[in-house]
């Protein structure tokens, strides 16, 4: 039995692993609130509308981890844990709106969210879902929303920055474990946001109030917050988030497929080959690294194979997410990931947020039209690229794009060719260190080669 290292802040309970299965212990201190969640009908309402993760009560079947145990529950499995600094704009927006929907439902049932962490939301079956069953407590009339500050830091501030300053401000979520500090957001946001009633109050005024009352807990007089005011507060947050927009496009790969190197026949051949390779390897989870808008990822996800579509470009990931939402696709999860600097392990003792490799391994990794970007744009030696791919997956579908291909020549046009080993022989030699080549097929009317490999 192993306590999940990311689960330690809330004394209401914690997660633990037993025989590779994840359980949640509910502590005695949380008994009343847990009972109220079920007896008030809130649990049923939220799970029926796919807003909260469902669970089974396994108190009688699984041994508790400690004496202060009230219940042991087994939450529905989340196939892949992702973090807000990996989500596209609309994913973060939908996660925020889900949190507010949950809070509104909770208030209807005499409860309230005691935290509003973006890390409590995960994408399951294509939709954002609250995964922390212990996030609720009974609502006392007149009390303010305890999680208001956290909501503003985890959702409102990053969304406002991404939408009104630059999409890359998303990285602030990676460097601040408890969301973007509001004083920082207030400094960075453009002056015009001071004329937006919602941002002026929830960020600028909020930040000033935090500064004014910092370290003055005892002296400040707390006025009650009526239900009327609380409803208004939540509605104001909700309507300002609904209005926030970010238009993808104009970034690196936005129009990639219009400029690809494939004739339509070669494109069809490539798709067919990949479908065949997927059929051979029968993966349960696929990682498509450098997925762009997920065209090839869908060859796996459309067969109900859990597929994570990583791309460095937030615009491509945004388009991918919008497409899956429009088509109600359930097995695909697009994420923003810079493979040359992938998500690290973060938080206390490096254990609160897992690194990308730590969340592996995948049964099948797809690296299509990627290798030249790693080797030529980023100077990663071929053998180191091979080593990383062996670290994250058992099988590999990889496309080798040699010199002479217009995409590679374009990369080489602005820099000196310091890559004498970058050819088919050099590529195969590096990959054979870690993989056995199962299939090797030349793509028609191009210089590219598609490989299926299995890790040694």
């Amino acid at each position, binding site marked *: 039995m192993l306590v999940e290292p990311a689960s330690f802040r809330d004394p209401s309970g914690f997660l633990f692993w037993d025989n590779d299965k994840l359980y949640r212990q509910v502590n005695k201190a949380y008994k009343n609130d847990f009972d109220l969640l079920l007896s008030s009908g809130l649990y049923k309402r939220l799970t029926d509308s796919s807003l909260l993760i469902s669970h089974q009560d396994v108190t009688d079947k699984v041994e508790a981890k400690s004496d202060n145990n009230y219940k042991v529950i087994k939450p529905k499995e989340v196939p892949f844990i992702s973090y807000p600094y990996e989500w596209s704009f609309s994913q973060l927006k939908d996660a925020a709106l889900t949190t507010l929907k949950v809070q509104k439902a909770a208030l209807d049932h005499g409860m309230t969210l005691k935290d509003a962490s973006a890390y409590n939301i995960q994408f399951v079956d294509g939709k954002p879902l609250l995964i922390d069953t212990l996030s609720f407590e009974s609502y006392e009339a007149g009390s303010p929303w305890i999680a208001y500050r956290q909501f503003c830091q985890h959702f409102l501030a990053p969304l406002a920055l991404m939408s009104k300053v630059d999409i890359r401000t998303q990285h602030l979520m990676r460097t601040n474990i408890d969301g973007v500090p509001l004083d920082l957001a207030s400094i960075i946001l453009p002056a015009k946001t001071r004329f937006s009633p919602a941002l002026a109050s929830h960020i600028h*005024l909020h930040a000033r109030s935090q500064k004014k009352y*910092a370290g003055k807990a005892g002296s400040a007089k707390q006025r009650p917050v009526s239900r009327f005011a609380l409803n208004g507060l939540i509605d104001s947050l909700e309507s300002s988030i609904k209005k926030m927009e970010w238009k993808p496009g104009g970034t690196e790969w936005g129009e990639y497929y219009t400029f690809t190197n494939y004739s339509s026949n070669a494109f069809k051949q490539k798709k067919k080959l990949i479908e065949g390779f997927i059929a051979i390897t029968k993966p349960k989870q696929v990682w498509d690294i450098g997925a762009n808008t997920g065209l090839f990822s869908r060859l796996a996800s459309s067969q109900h194979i859990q597929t994570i579509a990583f791309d460095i470009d937030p615009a491509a990931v945004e388009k991918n997410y919008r497409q899956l939402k429009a088509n109600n696709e359930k097995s695909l999860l697009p994420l923003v990931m810079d493979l040359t600097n992938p998500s690290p392990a973060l938080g206390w003792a490096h254990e609160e947020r897992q690194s990308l490799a730590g969340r592996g391994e995948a049964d099948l990794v797809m690296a299509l039209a990627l290798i030249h970007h790693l080797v030529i744009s980023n100077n990663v030696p071929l053998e180191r690229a091979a080593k990383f791919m062996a670290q994250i997956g058992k099988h590999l579908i990889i496309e080798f794009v040699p010199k002479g291909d217009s995409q590679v020549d374009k990369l080489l046009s602005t820099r000196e060719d310091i890559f004498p080993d970058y050819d088919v022989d050099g590529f195969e030699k590096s990959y054979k260190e870690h993989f056995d080549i199962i299939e090797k097929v030349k793509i028609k009317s191009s210089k590219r080669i598609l490989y299926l490999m299995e890790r040694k």
Partner: protein
Amino acid sequence: MNLFAYIDPGTGSMIVQALIGVFAGVMFFSKSLIRQGIARARLFFSKPKNTSTEE
């Protein structure tokens, strides 16, 4: 206020909520009134719909 809050709600965040909440509450209330007003006006001016399933 709940004594078992495990995250720091922040004194400034709690205080400012009372202020923002009042304004936001008034906004929310007026929005709902306007919506209700529009809905009633629509109902009043529109022709009664035939809700029967029998054709």
